């Protein structure tokens, strides 16, 4: 498994993702600066969490225009797996790789805590190894997913909501925590699987997301 973790100015979970990929999963993981080209022959691209461009303008809006995003778009169009975590999800929405947007939480506050997620389907590249319910940490102020009525209806009809909050944690439409694109190869996920991948840190719910990806790539 060969993974590229994209580093934008202001990304701050890039090192965490690299650590989990390398030290926990034993994958080859490459930090890829946003002005460089995407490395060749990668199996997975991770857009990590953080505050790319300081969240100026709108979360993810500036990073979506970064040079690397052209390569990411082509990679996704070719069927490559892309995982956008937290700010990564916001960037994917701004880049048009996923529908909708992430607004400020309903209570206008940042939330850092563990939340329970229902895994809506377990036949995707990101969830095949997940149990029905996983607990992952969230850490965001803009995680309140919103989309137009038609888009939401399509997302639900096409079963593209993969992860759903058990409780309403931030006001997200339909309690959406993570969605995939039409091709099923791009996932945006507000909670942080990389923060729940080692028993020492309290939970391992995130490992099942990475295990799913390993299986999908091997298939």
């Amino acid at each position, binding site marked *: 498994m060969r993974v590229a973790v994209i580093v934008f100015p*202001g990304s701050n*979970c890039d090192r965490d993702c690299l650590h989990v990929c390398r030290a926990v999963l034993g994958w080859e993981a490459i930090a890829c600066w946003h002005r460089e080209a995407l490395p060749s022959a990668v199996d997975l691209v991770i857009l990590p969490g953080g505050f790319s461009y300081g969240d100026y303008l709108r979360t993810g809006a500036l990073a979506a225009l970064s040079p690397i995003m052209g390569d990411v778009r082509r990679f996704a169009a070719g069927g490559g797996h892309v995982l956008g975590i937290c700010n990564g999800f916001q960037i994917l929405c701004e880049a048009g790789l996923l529908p909708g947007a992430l607004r400020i939480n309903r209570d206008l506050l940042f939330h*850092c*805590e563990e939340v329970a997620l229902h895994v809506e389907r377990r036949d995707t590249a990101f969830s095949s190894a997940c149990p029905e319910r996983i607990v992952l940490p969230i850490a965001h102020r803009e995680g309140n997913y919103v989309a137009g009525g038609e888009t939401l209806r399509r997302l639900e009809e096409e079963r593209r909501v993969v992860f759903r909050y058990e409780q309403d944690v931030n006001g997200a439409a339909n309690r959406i925590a993570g969605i995939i694109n039409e091709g099923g190869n791009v996932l945006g996920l507000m909670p942080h699987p990389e*923060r729940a*991948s080692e028993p020492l*840190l309290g939970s391992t719910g995130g490992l099942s997301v990475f295990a799913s990806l390993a299986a999908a790539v091997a298939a």
Partner: protein
Amino acid sequence: MNLAAAITPDLVAGHGLRPAEFDSIVQALGRDPTLVELGIYSVMWSEHCAYKHSRPLLRTLPTRGERVVVGPGENAGVIDIGGGLCVAFKMESHNHPSAVEPYQGAATGVGGILRDIFTMGARPIALLDNLRFGEPDAPHMRHLIEGVVEGIAGYGNCVGVPTVGGDIMFDPGHAGNILVNVMCVGLVRTEHIRRGQAHGPGNAVLYFGSPTGRDGIHGATFASGELSEEALERRSAVQVGDPFMGKRILECTLELIERGLVVGIQDMGAAGLTCSTCEMAGRAGTGIEIDLDRVPQRAPAMSAYEILLSESQERMLAVCEQTRLAEVLEVCERWECGGVVIGQVTGSGRVEVHHRGEVVASIPANHLTHGAPVYHPPEAAPAAPEEFDLPPVLPGEDFKTALLALLASPTIASKRWAYRRYDHMVQIATVLRPGDADAAVLRLPGPGEPRFLAVTSGGNHRLVARDPRAGAALAVLEAARNLVCTGAQPLAITNCLNFGSPERPEVFGQLRRAIEGIAGACRALDIPVTGGNVSLYNESGGVAIPPTPIIGMVGLIEREEHITRPGWREPGDVIYVLGDPAAGLGGSELAKYLVGGDLPGVTPRGPLPPIAIDREVALLDAVRSAILAGLIRSAHDVSDGGLAVTLAECCLLSRGGHGAWIHETPDGDLALTLFGELPPRVVVSVRPADARAFEALISARGVACAEIGLVGLPGLRCADQAAISHSEMQQAHETPPWESLR
């Protein structure tokens, strides 16, 4: 500004300089200072930079130790934790800016302490905040609380450094002058430690980060006739932070250092460009020559005075070899941090500043950094705390009501309302999170079996107010107890001394005694002080705050199995209290509740019970030995609210939801036993099979050890008192401060 302005006595006084200080300046320069030079001296010889009142006292602190790599005087202290790894840590105050503009005041406090750490070459891995507010229902207080918490979150979350600890206390004495103390801990490999020293005449002086603006210019008190009205209107009183630039200069600085591209480096914090150039030259015994025309500026037509004294945030000054400049600028460009050479290191011993073709300042660096006078103001013994009569039984209250009220009181209640707004998990190293235990525990990187760093910061000013010497020593001992209860060995402390005006004899008396108390406790524990900060003149309406020394401490846990939590583990485990019996209620939360509860603004009085430091050190040693021997299942420090609150917290933090049945409350006054906070004690639980070995180990160290009950069904039952359910305790404990039952 008129550079040739006559330097009048009024102008000197307006810069906060005394006539004798001015004479010393004239003597060092051999002439009258220019206005720019006067401004430079004004900030460099301010209490904040020069410690004029506190330096002789601070010298009495123990600062040596075999682990100390960098002691006081640099941007942060550094200790060696083995394996080629060092810990840099430091604490700073941002009290006055936070009182004026809580969000930006707190945010730039976080930004400033982060810079102090990464300037040393260390990657920041943790932030802690110690906040002191008035009672939550005091006027404007909720605005201040919300603003400060949002400011800390806004900066720390964005930069990606977890906020893992600290404390928050509410006291009428801080209503007019809130305190925002911020601590940062960083990790650095020994070979990457850098200092703020400008070595090597001929080396380039590089400026990177944000451009310089007119914000936060010291001398807001400065004779306004010298500045145009227009300029005054444009000047903001508090600096504005940009965490995105903070993150970029962090990464840029660490990359420059790791690649060996800088000789010395310093951030521009208080007093900005002035302080960083003078200190770097002063420490290295060299000179620096800079040209202000090259300094990036974000406002038009700034004067030399404004450029030099601006406190614009997120700016760095580095000294680099000329031959490596191209590489340096390439790193700066990559992180989009600017990067401009503004001068060079000289051998002249002077700080020389050019602007628009003129020399606007030329000062001996050493005189600026080391020439500030030291004052020994008159001091008075602090007034003895008045005795008070606490009703012998809880008046009209039973145990349950009192305990639930204390659990819901703002200082004791859960701080989840604050720390859930802080990203405390980023960097995926937080093993014990805020609210989990007495201290935060972080995984250290490195090959092999993981090791752990435990960090804590706090200090109960109510104890210091009653007895500055004993209270400050108790703050050090509590920090040590917090670390020991998680299984750590305490290694070193930093501190932030928040006091009123040292020119008040009783305040200077408090300061001296508090420093003596810290020094005594550190000697008894054999741990050094590696740095700190002094914040004086914390007053409002002519009244000083309660003396508030905050202690930050770091410790090491060598093995994962030594990490200890406060929550009960298994039903049937035996509960012990270690330490001498409670001996008084002076300064306790119960006293505040009973005496002050119905009378807002009344602070409970009463002296502290006597403290024997050697007994406290023995207690720490006993707990740690028992943890290392694998004899302790859980450990929790007895602090605010006494034994009863501690037992309740052990129930609330039990992952299995276990409760406690306390069958034995030592004889005597129930209020004293259950709610007394001193002398310090520790509650532990032990496997029944280990009970005998545990008791033997503890008593061999001469530490009092009382078996008081068993871990059992959910809830807390204390002898014949009414049982309290888990949910009752939880509900009370989760009360946000502005909804407390006062």
